[in-house]
Protein backbone atom coordinates (compact mmCIF):
# COMPACT_ATOMS: atom_id res chain seq x y z
CA UNK A 1 0.00 0.00 0.00
CA UNK A 2 2.38 2.68 -1.18
CA UNK A 3 0.52 5.89 -1.70
CA UNK A 4 2.71 8.58 -3.14
CA UNK A 5 0.55 11.67 -3.25
CA UNK A 6 1.32 14.84 -5.24
CA UNK A 7 1.87 16.50 -1.88
CA UNK A 8 4.81 14.18 -1.20
CA UNK A 9 6.26 14.87 -4.65
CA UNK A 10 6.02 18.61 -4.03
CA UNK A 11 7.66 18.30 -0.59
CA UNK A 12 10.55 16.34 -2.00
CA UNK A 13 11.07 18.67 -4.96
CA UNK A 14 10.92 21.85 -2.91
CA UNK A 15 12.96 20.33 -0.09
CA UNK A 16 15.81 19.22 -2.29
CA UNK A 17 15.64 22.45 -4.29
CA UNK A 18 16.08 24.35 -1.03
CA UNK A 19 19.02 22.16 -0.03
CA UNK A 20 20.82 22.26 -3.36
CA UNK A 21 20.05 25.49 -5.23
CA UNK A 22 22.31 27.71 -3.07
CA UNK A 23 25.26 25.34 -3.56
CA UNK A 24 24.59 25.04 -7.31
CA UNK A 25 24.41 28.83 -7.69
CA UNK A 26 27.67 29.21 -5.80
CA UNK A 27 29.39 26.76 -8.13
CA UNK A 28 27.87 28.32 -11.27
CA UNK A 29 28.96 31.83 -10.32
CA UNK A 30 32.54 30.69 -9.69
CA UNK A 31 32.76 30.41 -13.51
CA UNK A 32 31.47 33.93 -13.99
CA UNK A 33 33.63 36.23 -16.08
CA UNK A 34 32.33 39.32 -14.31
CA UNK A 35 33.87 40.47 -11.06
CA UNK A 36 30.37 41.27 -9.81
CA UNK A 37 29.26 38.04 -8.26
CA UNK A 38 25.61 38.54 -9.05
CA UNK A 39 25.83 39.64 -12.68
CA UNK A 40 26.48 36.94 -15.26
CA UNK A 41 29.26 38.02 -17.63
CA UNK A 42 29.91 34.81 -19.52
CA UNK A 43 31.84 31.62 -18.77
CA UNK A 44 35.41 31.93 -17.56
CA UNK A 45 37.96 30.14 -15.43
CA UNK A 46 39.93 33.31 -14.57
CA UNK A 47 39.13 33.01 -10.89
CA UNK A 48 40.59 29.54 -10.68
CA UNK A 49 43.79 30.84 -12.25
CA UNK A 50 44.01 33.75 -9.80
CA UNK A 51 43.21 31.33 -6.99
CA UNK A 52 46.22 29.18 -7.78
CA UNK A 53 48.40 32.28 -7.84
CA UNK A 54 47.20 33.27 -4.35
CA UNK A 55 50.03 32.11 -2.10
CA UNK A 56 48.24 33.00 1.14
CA UNK A 57 45.24 30.89 0.23
CA UNK A 58 47.39 27.98 -0.93
CA UNK A 59 49.39 28.09 2.29
CA UNK A 60 46.20 28.05 4.33
CA UNK A 61 44.91 25.13 2.27
CA UNK A 62 48.09 23.19 2.99
CA UNK A 63 47.79 23.85 6.73
CA UNK A 64 44.14 22.77 6.65
CA UNK A 65 44.90 19.55 4.81
CA UNK A 66 47.71 18.60 7.19
CA UNK A 67 45.54 19.35 10.23
CA UNK A 68 42.62 17.41 8.76
CA UNK A 69 44.72 14.35 7.89
CA UNK A 70 46.30 14.20 11.36
CA UNK A 71 42.98 14.90 13.08
CA UNK A 72 41.09 12.25 11.12
CA UNK A 73 43.66 9.59 11.93
CA UNK A 74 43.92 10.42 15.64
CA UNK A 75 40.16 10.82 16.01
CA UNK A 76 39.47 7.52 14.24
CA UNK A 77 41.74 5.58 16.59
CA UNK A 78 40.43 7.29 19.72
CA UNK A 79 36.81 7.29 18.54
CA UNK A 80 36.83 3.58 17.65
CA UNK A 81 38.27 2.77 21.09
CA UNK A 82 35.60 4.98 22.67
CA UNK A 83 32.88 3.19 20.69
CA UNK A 84 34.21 -0.16 21.86
CA UNK A 85 34.10 1.08 25.44
CA UNK A 86 30.60 2.52 25.06
CA UNK A 87 29.18 -0.71 23.67
CA UNK A 88 31.03 -3.32 25.71
CA UNK A 89 32.67 -1.91 28.84
CA UNK A 90 29.69 -2.38 31.13
CA UNK A 91 31.69 -1.85 34.30
CA UNK A 92 33.78 1.22 33.52
CA UNK A 93 34.61 3.52 36.47
CA UNK A 94 32.35 6.60 36.27
CA UNK A 95 30.77 5.21 33.12
CA UNK A 96 28.12 7.91 32.97
CA UNK A 97 30.85 10.59 33.02
CA UNK A 98 32.53 8.87 30.09
CA UNK A 99 29.24 8.63 28.19
CA UNK A 100 28.45 12.27 28.89
CA UNK A 101 31.90 13.37 27.74
CA UNK A 102 31.55 11.46 24.46
CA UNK A 103 28.12 12.87 23.64
CA UNK A 104 28.40 16.44 24.95
CA UNK A 105 30.91 17.72 22.34
CA UNK A 106 28.43 16.70 19.61
CA UNK A 107 26.10 19.51 20.59
CA UNK A 108 28.43 21.84 22.50
CA UNK A 109 28.45 25.29 20.87
CA UNK A 110 31.75 25.71 19.05
CA UNK A 111 32.51 29.04 20.70
CA UNK A 112 32.62 27.27 24.08
CA UNK A 113 34.80 24.39 22.88
CA UNK A 114 37.16 26.87 21.23
CA UNK A 115 37.37 29.23 24.21
CA UNK A 116 37.84 26.46 26.77
CA UNK A 117 40.60 24.74 24.81
CA UNK A 118 42.40 28.01 24.23
CA UNK A 119 42.33 28.76 27.95
CA UNK A 120 43.74 25.29 28.63
CA UNK A 121 46.59 25.81 26.17
CA UNK A 122 47.37 29.20 27.70
CA UNK A 123 47.22 27.77 31.22
CA UNK A 124 49.70 24.98 30.46
CA UNK A 125 51.85 27.26 28.31
CA UNK A 126 51.44 25.29 25.10
CA UNK A 127 52.55 27.24 22.00
CA UNK A 128 49.61 27.83 19.69
CA UNK A 129 49.84 26.56 16.14
CA UNK A 130 49.45 23.37 14.14
CA UNK A 131 49.25 21.05 17.15
CA UNK A 132 46.77 23.07 19.18
CA UNK A 133 44.38 23.11 16.19
CA UNK A 134 44.89 19.39 15.66
CA UNK A 135 44.30 18.53 19.31
CA UNK A 136 41.17 20.71 19.44
CA UNK A 137 39.78 19.18 16.26
CA UNK A 138 40.56 15.66 17.43
CA UNK A 139 38.65 16.29 20.64
CA UNK A 140 35.32 16.97 18.99
CA UNK A 141 35.86 14.77 15.93
CA UNK A 142 36.55 11.67 18.03
CA UNK A 143 33.02 11.93 19.46
CA UNK A 144 31.49 11.88 15.98
CA UNK A 145 33.63 8.86 15.07
CA UNK A 146 32.54 7.14 18.31
CA UNK A 147 28.84 7.60 17.46
CA UNK A 148 29.26 6.34 13.88
CA UNK A 149 31.32 3.28 14.86
CA UNK A 150 29.12 2.55 17.87
CA UNK A 151 26.00 2.19 15.72
CA UNK A 152 27.78 -0.46 13.67
CA UNK A 153 29.31 -2.20 16.67
CA UNK A 154 25.92 -2.59 18.37
CA UNK A 155 24.74 -4.63 15.39
CA UNK A 156 27.85 -6.82 15.44
CA UNK A 157 27.30 -10.49 16.17
CA UNK A 158 29.53 -11.33 19.17
CA UNK A 159 29.43 -15.03 18.45
CA UNK A 160 31.90 -14.39 15.61
CA UNK A 161 34.47 -13.13 18.11
CA UNK A 162 33.68 -16.02 20.42
CA UNK A 163 34.31 -18.45 17.60
CA UNK A 164 37.67 -16.81 16.96
CA UNK A 165 38.52 -17.16 20.64
CA UNK A 166 37.44 -20.80 20.60
CA UNK A 167 39.93 -21.28 17.81
CA UNK A 168 42.69 -19.85 19.99
CA UNK A 169 42.72 -16.11 19.31
CA UNK A 170 43.31 -13.71 22.18
CA UNK A 171 40.52 -11.13 22.78
CA UNK A 172 42.66 -8.44 21.14
CA UNK A 173 43.42 -10.67 18.16
CA UNK A 174 39.77 -11.58 17.84
CA UNK A 175 38.85 -7.90 17.76
CA UNK A 176 41.51 -6.89 15.26
CA UNK A 177 41.16 -9.89 12.94
CA UNK A 178 37.40 -10.49 13.11
CA UNK A 179 35.49 -7.47 14.37
CA UNK A 180 37.54 -4.67 12.83
CA UNK A 181 37.18 -5.89 9.22
CA UNK A 182 33.41 -6.22 9.70
CA UNK A 183 32.96 -2.75 11.15
CA UNK A 184 35.54 -1.20 8.77
CA UNK A 185 32.93 0.63 6.62
CA UNK A 186 31.87 2.54 9.75
CA UNK A 187 35.50 3.19 10.70
CA UNK A 188 36.22 4.53 7.19
CA UNK A 189 33.06 6.65 7.31
CA UNK A 190 34.22 7.94 10.70
CA UNK A 191 37.62 8.87 9.29
CA UNK A 192 36.01 10.77 6.41
CA UNK A 193 33.62 12.52 8.74
CA UNK A 194 36.47 13.57 11.05
CA UNK A 195 38.45 14.75 8.02
CA UNK A 196 35.67 16.99 6.70
CA UNK A 197 34.74 18.26 10.17
CA UNK A 198 38.32 19.37 10.66
CA UNK A 199 38.60 20.80 7.15
CA UNK A 200 35.39 22.81 7.64
CA UNK A 201 35.89 24.14 11.13
CA UNK A 202 36.22 27.90 11.47
CA UNK A 203 35.26 28.80 15.03
CA UNK A 204 37.41 26.42 17.06
CA UNK A 205 40.45 26.96 14.82
CA UNK A 206 40.07 30.75 15.18
CA UNK A 207 40.35 30.43 18.94
CA UNK A 208 43.27 28.02 19.19
CA UNK A 209 45.39 28.93 16.16
CA UNK A 210 48.57 30.88 16.50
CA UNK A 211 50.53 33.18 14.22
CA UNK A 212 51.60 31.34 11.09
CA UNK A 213 48.93 28.67 11.30
CA UNK A 214 45.92 30.07 9.48
CA UNK A 215 43.51 27.47 8.15
CA UNK A 216 41.56 27.71 4.91
CA UNK A 217 38.17 28.44 6.55
CA UNK A 218 39.82 31.23 8.56
CA UNK A 219 41.26 32.73 5.36
CA UNK A 220 37.92 32.37 3.55
CA UNK A 221 36.06 33.88 6.49
CA UNK A 222 38.27 36.95 6.64
CA UNK A 223 37.83 37.59 2.92
CA UNK A 224 34.06 36.93 3.09
CA UNK A 225 33.81 39.62 5.73
CA UNK A 226 35.25 42.03 3.17
CA UNK A 227 32.68 40.97 0.56
CA UNK A 228 31.68 38.27 -1.84
CA UNK A 229 34.25 37.64 -4.58
CA UNK A 230 34.42 35.09 -7.41
CA UNK A 231 37.76 33.80 -6.07
CA UNK A 232 36.05 32.67 -2.88
CA UNK A 233 33.38 31.01 -4.98
CA UNK A 234 36.13 29.19 -6.86
CA UNK A 235 37.85 28.11 -3.64
CA UNK A 236 34.50 26.88 -2.25
CA UNK A 237 33.78 24.99 -5.47
CA UNK A 238 37.08 23.14 -5.24
CA UNK A 239 36.33 22.20 -1.63
CA UNK A 240 32.83 21.03 -2.55
CA UNK A 241 34.22 18.98 -5.44
CA UNK A 242 36.83 17.36 -3.18
CA UNK A 243 34.20 16.40 -0.62
CA UNK A 244 31.78 15.13 -3.28
CA UNK A 245 34.47 12.96 -4.86
CA UNK A 246 35.55 11.66 -1.45
CA UNK A 247 32.01 10.78 -0.36
CA UNK A 248 31.27 9.12 -3.69
CA UNK A 249 34.48 7.09 -3.53
CA UNK A 250 33.60 5.99 0.01
CA UNK A 251 30.06 5.02 -1.00
CA UNK A 252 31.27 3.07 -4.01
CA UNK A 253 33.95 1.29 -1.96
CA UNK A 254 31.34 0.32 0.64
CA UNK A 255 29.01 -0.93 -2.13
CA UNK A 256 31.79 -2.90 -3.75
CA UNK A 257 32.84 -4.51 -0.45
CA UNK A 258 29.23 -5.35 0.41
CA UNK A 259 28.71 -6.89 -3.00
CA UNK A 260 31.87 -8.94 -2.66
CA UNK A 261 30.86 -10.14 0.77
CA UNK A 262 27.44 -11.18 -0.44
CA UNK A 263 28.86 -13.19 -3.31
CA UNK A 264 31.24 -14.60 -0.76
CA UNK A 265 33.82 -17.35 -1.09
Amino acid sequence: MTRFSPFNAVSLTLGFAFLYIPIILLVVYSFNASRLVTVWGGFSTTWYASLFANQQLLGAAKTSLLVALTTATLATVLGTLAALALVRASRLPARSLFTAMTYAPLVMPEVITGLSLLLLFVAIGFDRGFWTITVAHTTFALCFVAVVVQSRLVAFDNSLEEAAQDLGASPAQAFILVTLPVISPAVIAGWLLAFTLSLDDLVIASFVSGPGSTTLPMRIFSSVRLGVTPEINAACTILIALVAVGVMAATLTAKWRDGRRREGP
Partner: protein
Amino acid sequence: MRLTRSSLTADMRRRPSQSANENRKGISRVALAAFAAIPPYVWLLFFFLAPFLIVLKISFSEAVIAQPPYTPTFSLSDGISGLLEAVKSFTIFNYTFLTEDSLYWRSYLSSLRIAAISTVFALIIGFPIAYAMVRTGTRWRPLLVALVILPFWTSFLIRVYAWIGILKRDGLLNQLLLSSGLISEPLTILNTDLAVYIGIVYGYLPFMILPVYAALERQDRSLLEAAADLGSPPFLAFWQVTVRLSLPGIIAGCLLVFIPAVGEFVVPDLLGGSSTLMIGKTLWTEFFNNRDWPLASAVAVLLVLVLVVPITLFQRAQRRGEL
Protein backbone atom coordinates in the same frame (compact mmCIF):
# COMPACT_ATOMS: atom_id res chain seq x y z
CA MET B 1 16.47 -5.22 8.41
CA ARG B 2 19.56 -3.97 10.18
CA LEU B 3 17.33 -2.88 13.03
CA THR B 4 15.90 -6.32 13.59
CA ARG B 5 19.37 -7.78 13.47
CA SER B 6 20.69 -5.36 16.05
CA SER B 7 17.80 -5.98 18.41
CA LEU B 8 18.31 -9.69 17.93
CA THR B 9 21.97 -9.55 18.91
CA ALA B 10 21.05 -7.32 21.83
CA ASP B 11 18.64 -10.03 23.00
CA MET B 12 21.33 -12.63 22.64
CA ARG B 13 23.71 -10.59 24.69
CA ARG B 14 21.23 -10.18 27.46
CA ARG B 15 20.66 -13.92 27.70
CA PRO B 16 22.77 -15.44 30.46
CA SER B 17 25.73 -17.36 29.07
CA GLN B 18 25.21 -21.05 28.85
CA SER B 19 28.64 -22.22 29.87
CA ALA B 20 31.44 -21.05 32.10
CA ASN B 21 33.70 -20.97 29.07
CA GLU B 22 31.44 -18.53 27.27
CA ASN B 23 31.17 -16.46 30.41
CA ARG B 24 34.94 -16.19 30.61
CA LYS B 25 35.11 -15.01 27.03
CA GLY B 26 32.46 -12.44 27.83
CA ILE B 27 34.51 -11.21 30.77
CA SER B 28 37.71 -10.93 28.75
CA ARG B 29 35.81 -9.00 26.11
CA VAL B 30 34.50 -6.56 28.72
CA ALA B 31 38.02 -6.27 30.15
CA LEU B 32 39.44 -5.51 26.73
CA ALA B 33 36.77 -2.86 26.19
CA ALA B 34 37.57 -1.28 29.55
CA PHE B 35 41.23 -1.24 28.54
CA ALA B 36 40.29 0.35 25.21
CA ALA B 37 38.46 3.07 27.11
CA ILE B 38 41.65 4.40 28.69
CA PRO B 39 43.05 6.51 25.80
CA PRO B 40 39.78 8.26 24.86
CA TYR B 41 38.84 8.59 28.53
CA VAL B 42 42.13 10.29 29.42
CA TRP B 43 41.96 12.43 26.27
CA LEU B 44 38.46 13.68 27.06
CA LEU B 45 39.26 14.29 30.72
CA PHE B 46 42.24 16.39 29.72
CA PHE B 47 40.88 18.17 26.63
CA PHE B 48 37.18 18.38 27.37
CA LEU B 49 36.57 18.37 31.12
CA ALA B 50 39.70 20.17 32.31
CA PRO B 51 39.29 23.11 29.87
CA PHE B 52 35.78 23.45 31.18
CA LEU B 53 36.97 23.76 34.75
CA ILE B 54 39.52 26.34 33.62
CA VAL B 55 36.76 28.39 31.98
CA LEU B 56 34.83 28.20 35.25
CA LYS B 57 37.89 29.34 37.20
CA ILE B 58 38.73 32.22 34.87
CA SER B 59 35.13 33.41 34.91
CA PHE B 60 35.77 34.27 38.56
CA SER B 61 38.97 36.13 37.73
CA GLU B 62 39.60 39.77 36.99
CA ALA B 63 40.59 41.13 33.60
CA VAL B 64 44.00 42.84 33.48
CA ILE B 65 46.19 44.12 30.71
CA ALA B 66 48.83 41.44 30.77
CA GLN B 67 49.70 38.11 29.24
CA PRO B 68 47.56 36.11 29.99
CA PRO B 69 45.00 38.91 30.43
CA TYR B 70 43.46 37.82 33.71
CA THR B 71 44.32 37.63 37.39
CA PRO B 72 44.83 35.68 39.63
CA THR B 73 46.94 33.13 37.82
CA PHE B 74 48.35 30.16 39.61
CA SER B 75 50.37 27.17 38.62
CA LEU B 76 50.30 23.72 40.13
CA SER B 77 53.78 24.32 41.53
CA ASP B 78 52.30 26.84 43.98
CA GLY B 79 50.55 23.94 45.69
CA ILE B 80 47.51 24.11 47.91
CA SER B 81 48.44 27.41 49.54
CA GLY B 82 48.78 29.06 46.14
CA LEU B 83 45.41 27.65 45.17
CA LEU B 84 43.75 28.95 48.34
CA GLU B 85 45.35 32.35 47.79
CA ALA B 86 43.92 32.40 44.28
CA VAL B 87 40.46 31.29 45.43
CA LYS B 88 40.43 34.11 48.00
CA SER B 89 40.88 36.69 45.28
CA PHE B 90 38.07 35.24 43.17
CA THR B 91 35.39 37.69 42.24
CA ILE B 92 31.83 37.36 41.03
CA PHE B 93 32.22 40.74 39.33
CA ASN B 94 31.86 39.24 35.85
CA TYR B 95 28.54 37.65 36.71
CA THR B 96 27.09 40.77 38.33
CA PHE B 97 28.27 42.69 35.29
CA LEU B 98 26.40 40.25 33.03
CA THR B 99 23.17 40.88 34.90
CA GLU B 100 23.64 44.64 35.00
CA ASP B 101 24.45 45.29 31.37
CA SER B 102 21.31 44.57 29.38
CA LEU B 103 23.35 43.64 26.29
CA TYR B 104 24.08 40.21 27.76
CA TRP B 105 20.71 39.05 28.96
CA ARG B 106 19.15 40.44 25.79
CA SER B 107 21.69 38.37 23.83
CA TYR B 108 20.73 35.22 25.72
CA LEU B 109 16.99 35.82 25.25
CA SER B 110 17.39 36.73 21.61
CA SER B 111 19.54 33.61 20.97
CA LEU B 112 16.90 31.41 22.57
CA ARG B 113 14.16 33.11 20.55
CA ILE B 114 16.02 32.87 17.23
CA ALA B 115 16.97 29.23 17.90
CA ALA B 116 13.38 28.34 18.87
CA ILE B 117 11.81 30.01 15.82
CA SER B 118 14.39 28.41 13.53
CA THR B 119 13.70 25.00 15.09
CA VAL B 120 9.96 25.36 14.45
CA PHE B 121 10.60 26.29 10.83
CA ALA B 122 13.09 23.43 10.41
CA LEU B 123 10.39 21.05 11.69
CA ILE B 124 7.71 22.50 9.41
CA ILE B 125 10.02 22.13 6.40
CA GLY B 126 11.79 18.96 7.48
CA PHE B 127 8.84 16.79 8.50
CA PRO B 128 7.12 16.74 5.08
CA ILE B 129 10.48 15.93 3.44
CA ALA B 130 11.15 13.04 5.84
CA TYR B 131 7.56 11.84 5.42
CA ALA B 132 7.77 11.92 1.63
CA MET B 133 11.12 10.10 1.76
CA VAL B 134 9.54 7.23 3.68
CA ARG B 135 6.64 7.15 1.23
CA THR B 136 8.86 6.62 -1.80
CA GLY B 137 9.68 3.05 -2.71
CA THR B 138 12.41 1.33 -0.71
CA ARG B 139 14.60 1.46 -3.82
CA TRP B 140 14.88 5.23 -3.69
CA ARG B 141 15.36 5.67 0.03
CA PRO B 142 19.14 5.14 0.25
CA LEU B 143 19.70 7.67 -2.52
CA LEU B 144 17.43 10.24 -0.87
CA VAL B 145 19.12 9.75 2.52
CA ALA B 146 22.50 10.23 0.83
CA LEU B 147 21.20 13.43 -0.79
CA VAL B 148 20.12 14.76 2.61
CA ILE B 149 23.49 13.92 4.16
CA LEU B 150 25.62 15.28 1.32
CA PRO B 151 25.17 19.01 2.16
CA PHE B 152 26.24 18.14 5.71
CA TRP B 153 29.60 17.06 4.31
CA THR B 154 29.95 20.44 2.63
CA SER B 155 31.46 23.18 4.74
CA PHE B 156 28.94 25.02 6.91
CA LEU B 157 30.80 28.26 6.25
CA ILE B 158 30.47 27.77 2.49
CA ARG B 159 26.78 26.98 2.73
CA VAL B 160 26.16 30.12 4.77
CA TYR B 161 28.33 32.15 2.40
CA ALA B 162 26.24 30.91 -0.55
CA TRP B 163 23.22 32.73 0.87
CA ILE B 164 24.94 36.13 0.85
CA GLY B 165 24.93 36.21 -2.95
CA ILE B 166 21.27 35.18 -2.98
CA LEU B 167 19.90 37.49 -0.30
CA LYS B 168 21.90 40.64 -1.05
CA ARG B 169 20.09 43.80 -2.09
CA ASP B 170 21.32 43.32 -5.67
CA GLY B 171 21.41 39.56 -5.14
CA LEU B 172 19.90 36.73 -7.12
CA LEU B 173 16.61 36.52 -5.22
CA ASN B 174 15.88 40.22 -5.68
CA GLN B 175 16.87 40.05 -9.36
CA LEU B 176 14.45 37.15 -9.85
CA LEU B 177 11.59 38.82 -8.00
CA LEU B 178 12.15 42.19 -9.72
CA SER B 179 12.31 40.71 -13.22
CA SER B 180 9.18 38.63 -12.59
CA GLY B 181 7.39 41.82 -11.56
CA LEU B 182 6.39 40.46 -8.14
CA ILE B 183 8.07 43.37 -6.39
CA SER B 184 9.02 46.83 -7.61
CA GLU B 185 11.58 47.60 -4.90
CA PRO B 186 14.38 45.23 -3.87
CA LEU B 187 13.73 43.55 -0.51
CA THR B 188 16.17 44.01 2.33
CA ILE B 189 16.77 40.52 3.68
CA LEU B 190 20.52 40.28 4.20
CA ASN B 191 21.65 41.64 7.57
CA THR B 192 18.25 41.12 9.15
CA ASP B 193 16.94 38.48 11.57
CA LEU B 194 15.07 36.89 8.66
CA ALA B 195 18.38 36.08 6.97
CA VAL B 196 19.56 34.49 10.24
CA TYR B 197 16.45 32.26 10.35
CA ILE B 198 17.03 31.22 6.74
CA GLY B 199 20.71 30.47 7.42
CA ILE B 200 20.06 28.40 10.55
CA VAL B 201 17.18 26.43 9.00
CA TYR B 202 19.26 25.80 5.89
CA GLY B 203 22.37 24.78 7.80
CA TYR B 204 20.69 22.48 10.28
CA LEU B 205 17.85 21.01 8.18
CA PRO B 206 19.58 17.61 7.70
CA PHE B 207 19.76 17.28 11.49
CA MET B 208 15.97 17.56 11.59
CA ILE B 209 15.20 15.36 8.59
CA LEU B 210 17.35 12.37 9.54
CA PRO B 211 16.01 11.53 13.04
CA VAL B 212 12.41 12.15 11.91
CA TYR B 213 13.00 9.95 8.88
CA ALA B 214 14.46 7.20 11.07
CA ALA B 215 11.43 7.33 13.39
CA LEU B 216 8.95 7.29 10.50
CA GLU B 217 10.74 4.44 8.74
CA ARG B 218 10.50 2.29 11.84
CA GLN B 219 6.71 2.59 11.93
CA ASP B 220 4.52 -0.32 11.05
CA ARG B 221 2.27 0.78 8.18
CA SER B 222 -0.44 -1.66 9.24
CA LEU B 223 -1.13 0.54 12.27
CA LEU B 224 -2.58 3.15 9.90
CA GLU B 225 -4.72 0.49 8.24
CA ALA B 226 -5.93 -0.63 11.66
CA ALA B 227 -6.85 2.97 12.50
CA ALA B 228 -8.73 3.25 9.20
CA ASP B 229 -10.51 -0.07 9.83
CA LEU B 230 -11.61 1.24 13.20
CA GLY B 231 -13.19 4.23 11.48
CA SER B 232 -10.55 6.89 11.98
CA PRO B 233 -10.51 9.52 9.22
CA PRO B 234 -7.10 9.75 7.45
CA PHE B 235 -6.11 13.06 9.01
CA LEU B 236 -6.88 11.88 12.53
CA ALA B 237 -5.02 8.62 11.88
CA PHE B 238 -2.06 10.61 10.60
CA TRP B 239 -2.06 12.77 13.71
CA GLN B 240 -2.69 10.03 16.27
CA VAL B 241 -0.52 7.32 14.74
CA THR B 242 2.11 8.77 12.41
CA VAL B 243 2.93 11.96 14.31
CA ARG B 244 2.53 10.49 17.78
CA LEU B 245 4.79 7.55 17.06
CA SER B 246 7.45 9.70 15.43
CA LEU B 247 7.54 12.00 18.45
CA PRO B 248 10.91 10.68 19.71
CA GLY B 249 12.44 11.45 16.32
CA ILE B 250 10.82 14.88 16.27
CA ILE B 251 12.16 15.67 19.74
CA ALA B 252 15.64 14.44 18.83
CA GLY B 253 15.61 16.51 15.64
CA CYS B 254 14.42 19.63 17.45
CA LEU B 255 17.19 19.29 20.06
CA LEU B 256 19.83 18.70 17.37
CA VAL B 257 18.79 21.95 15.70
CA PHE B 258 18.02 24.01 18.79
CA ILE B 259 21.13 23.36 20.91
CA PRO B 260 23.84 24.30 18.39
CA ALA B 261 21.68 27.13 17.02
CA VAL B 262 21.64 28.88 20.41
CA GLY B 263 25.43 29.21 20.37
CA GLU B 264 25.68 29.85 16.62
CA PHE B 265 28.33 32.35 15.53
CA VAL B 266 28.87 32.07 11.76
CA VAL B 267 25.24 32.65 10.73
CA PRO B 268 24.57 35.81 12.77
CA ASP B 269 27.98 37.18 11.89
CA LEU B 270 27.67 36.72 8.12
CA LEU B 271 23.91 37.00 7.53
CA GLY B 272 22.70 38.97 10.55
CA GLY B 273 22.74 42.71 10.98
CA SER B 274 24.23 44.92 13.64
CA SER B 275 20.96 44.64 15.58
CA THR B 276 21.00 40.84 15.52
CA LEU B 277 21.97 39.79 19.01
CA MET B 278 23.21 36.25 19.52
CA ILE B 279 25.24 35.05 22.43
CA GLY B 280 27.83 33.22 20.31
CA LYS B 281 28.60 36.47 18.56
CA THR B 282 28.66 38.40 21.83
CA LEU B 283 31.15 35.91 23.29
CA TRP B 284 33.30 36.18 20.15
CA THR B 285 33.34 39.99 20.32
CA GLU B 286 34.09 39.96 24.04
CA PHE B 287 37.01 37.64 23.46
CA PHE B 288 38.54 38.82 20.19
CA ASN B 289 37.65 42.52 20.09
CA ASN B 290 37.50 43.53 23.76
CA ARG B 291 40.03 40.90 24.86
CA ASP B 292 38.11 40.45 28.10
CA TRP B 293 38.80 36.76 28.73
CA PRO B 294 37.18 36.55 32.20
CA LEU B 295 33.95 38.12 30.94
CA ALA B 296 33.93 35.86 27.87
CA SER B 297 34.37 32.90 30.23
CA ALA B 298 31.44 34.03 32.36
CA VAL B 299 29.33 34.34 29.18
CA ALA B 300 30.36 30.77 28.27
CA VAL B 301 29.53 29.39 31.72
CA LEU B 302 26.06 30.95 31.62
CA LEU B 303 25.54 29.64 28.09
CA VAL B 304 26.31 26.10 29.28
CA LEU B 305 23.88 26.57 32.18
CA VAL B 306 21.20 27.69 29.71
CA LEU B 307 21.87 24.61 27.58
CA VAL B 308 22.14 22.07 30.41
CA VAL B 309 18.47 21.07 30.25
CA PRO B 310 18.31 20.53 26.46
CA ILE B 311 21.71 18.79 26.46
CA THR B 312 20.58 16.40 29.21
CA LEU B 313 17.41 15.65 27.26
CA PHE B 314 19.53 15.03 24.18
CA GLN B 315 21.85 12.63 26.00
CA ARG B 316 18.90 10.73 27.40
CA ALA B 317 17.42 10.38 23.91
CA GLN B 318 20.82 9.28 22.60
CA ARG B 319 21.16 6.63 25.27
CA ARG B 320 17.69 5.27 24.58
CA GLY B 321 18.87 4.82 21.01
CA GLU B 322 16.44 7.20 19.41
CA LEU B 323 19.11 8.89 17.36
